């Protein structure tokens, strides 16, 4: 395939993974993520992607995440993709992977919920993805693409971070992005082999590799958990990523990620053309939340922060925490798989305080 393509979000993500040397994919079909395994199934065996050794459709999401765990235990780059209901089923596996310190990549193409919901975009898995993604205090790194370009480049970033920290990385997309078609330029195909001396590939030479998360001795578990906590703190201080658009002199700052940030950017331009000093702050990592940059934006004068998200208000809490008393924080929400129009958001930005 060429370097430049007009391509669908899910497909771009699949190719992005292949181009970063994906070794194994295990997954269960679920709308709106199924194009990821479908694309991978088609490319499985292609000489263009010699690192892609295993493609297997599993019998359930539970089976999928556990196969990913198995493959990752040998140091392989393994990934799965799903949507909300499947993501819930994978929480146990994600927690185990965090406890066992495995570099897995999980893609969640967020759809409306709760329960079966519908197939429209939502951002209602924010809590599930960022607040641990599993029981017992596990914490995933969460990347939020907002364009097909980022869908194509984030898998490589995800694997880098996953192996750097030996931790699960979640790519939190949404149904809109998954289906959106844009033209993108692909990053070069790499075959980066990550060093994994910890991997369970056999005890050659005598020393065994144990990949466990059970520590019955309380002191051991405490020490292990403290190590994990230290790791999460390192991630927090080094891996926050965000994009600021015209926030320097803005009096009202829209805060959004994913597809909503695309609409908000248009709103900012619209408002600026009418003399309103608007700006946008887009978190790129939702975990670690880019609190440092956001606090810095908030410190440059008292501004209104309007958090626009497709859920009942989830990221707004992180924004409130980061902004503190330095500015006012309002919440604009849309639900049911619907995306607010630029006009609706502009009204909220211009008008009286909302929410």
């Amino acid at each position, binding site marked *: 395939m060429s370097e430049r393509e007009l391509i669908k979000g899910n497909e771009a993500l699949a190719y992005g993974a292949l181009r970063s040397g994906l*070794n*194994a994919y*295990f997954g269960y079909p679920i709308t709106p993520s199924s194009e990821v395994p479908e694309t991978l199934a088609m490319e499985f065996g292609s000489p263009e992607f010699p690192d892609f*050794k*295993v493609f*297997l459709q*599993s*019998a*359930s999401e*539970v*089976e*999928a995440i*556990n*196969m*990913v*765990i*198995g*493959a*990752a*235990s*040998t140091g*392989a780059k*393994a990934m799965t993709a799903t949507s909300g209901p499947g993501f819930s089923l994978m929480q*146990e*596996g994600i927690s*185990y992977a965090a406890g*066992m310190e495995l570099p897995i990549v999980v893609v969640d193409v967020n759809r409306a919920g709760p329960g079966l919901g519908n197939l429209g975009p939502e951002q209602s898995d924010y809590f599930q993805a960022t607040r641990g993604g599993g029981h017992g205090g596990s914490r995933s790194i969460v990347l939020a693409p907002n364009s097909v370009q980022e869908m194509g480049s984030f898998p490589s970033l995800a694997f880098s971070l996953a192996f750097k920290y030996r931790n699960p990385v979640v790519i939190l997309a949404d149904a809109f992005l998954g289906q959106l078609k844009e033209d993108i330029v692909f990053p070069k195909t790499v075959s980066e082999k990550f060093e994994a001396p910890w991997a*369970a*590939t*056999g*005890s*050659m*030479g005598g020393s*065994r*590799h*144990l*990949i*466990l*998360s*059970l520590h019955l001795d309380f002191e051991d578990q405490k020490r292990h958990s403290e190590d994990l906590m230290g790791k999460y703190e390192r991630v927090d201080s080094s891996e926050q990523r965000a994009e600021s658009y015209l926030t320097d002199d803005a009096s009202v700052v829209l805060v959004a990620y994913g597809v909503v940030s695309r609409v908000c950017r248009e709103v900012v331009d619209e408002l600026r053309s009418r003399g309103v000093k608007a700006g946008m702050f887009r978190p790129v990592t939702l975990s670690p939340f880019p609190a440092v940059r956001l606090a810095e934006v908030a410190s440059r004068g008292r501004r209104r922060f309007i958090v626009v998200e497709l859920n009942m208000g989830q990221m707004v809490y992180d924004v409130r925490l980061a902004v503190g008393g330095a500015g006012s924080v309002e919440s604009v929400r849309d639900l049911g798989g619907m995306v607010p129009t630029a006009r609706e958001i502009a009204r909220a930005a211009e008008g009286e305080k909302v929410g």
Partner: protein
Amino acid sequence: MDSPAGEYEVKLGRLPTLTGKPTHYCAGCEHGTLTKLIASAIDRLGIREKSVLVDSVGCSVFAHDYIATDAVQAPHGRAPAVMAGIKRVEPGLVVFSVQGDGDAISIGLLELFYAANRGEPITIFLVNNAIYGMTGGQMAPTTPQGMVTTTTPRGRDTKYTGPTVDASKLVSSLDAPAYVKRVSLPLEPLPSTYLYSAKGTMECAAAVENAFKVQMMGGFSMVEVISTCSVNWKMSILESKRYAADVLSKVFPPGLYKDKFGVERR
């Protein structure tokens, strides 16, 4: 020692694949014996350095403390899926699990079924003691009619809970598995003698070795090991062996359920 003088040689000795750590298993539990049989097979076949044990949840969760190979933990019931993940990316490894009847047949039934259905070249040692041991003696899918457990205090009523599930029959009914064998590991009391027969032990030793061989020949292998749980069955150790012989072996008849490569004929 009152042995006669003379030069002795070691007939049976230390097993390199056993770590030697004293086990947490209850006195008389077949888990201990099975662990030793697995280690001895690994040593005989010389595959320790390319073997990976996948721990499951239950009394078998500490298997990695006793078997000196690489080990990866799996969530409850998921060992077959984790094993498939490992084996598919690293086909040169010998991957095996020790799972209880609850882990494999209850919560893990889907993972067991599909790994078997795909004929994943892995090996599952299913310890069937008809009860949930680690958690204190609750009903298992393999608990026979009438057996008292903490969640069937008046005896299991299979009309209400459904009958027992026969994993060997289920798995061997699929096309892909290559070796499915059920052995009764507990010592069997021989009537009107003082002796308990260790026939089950020797049969299990052979089955374990065959199971590994079948994996190395590319097939899915499973050995269901009828065992006892004297503590949770609330019986003495020897009584539990009698129960296994009298009741469990009738509900779950030992036998060779599948042998695609004919390993037992050799």
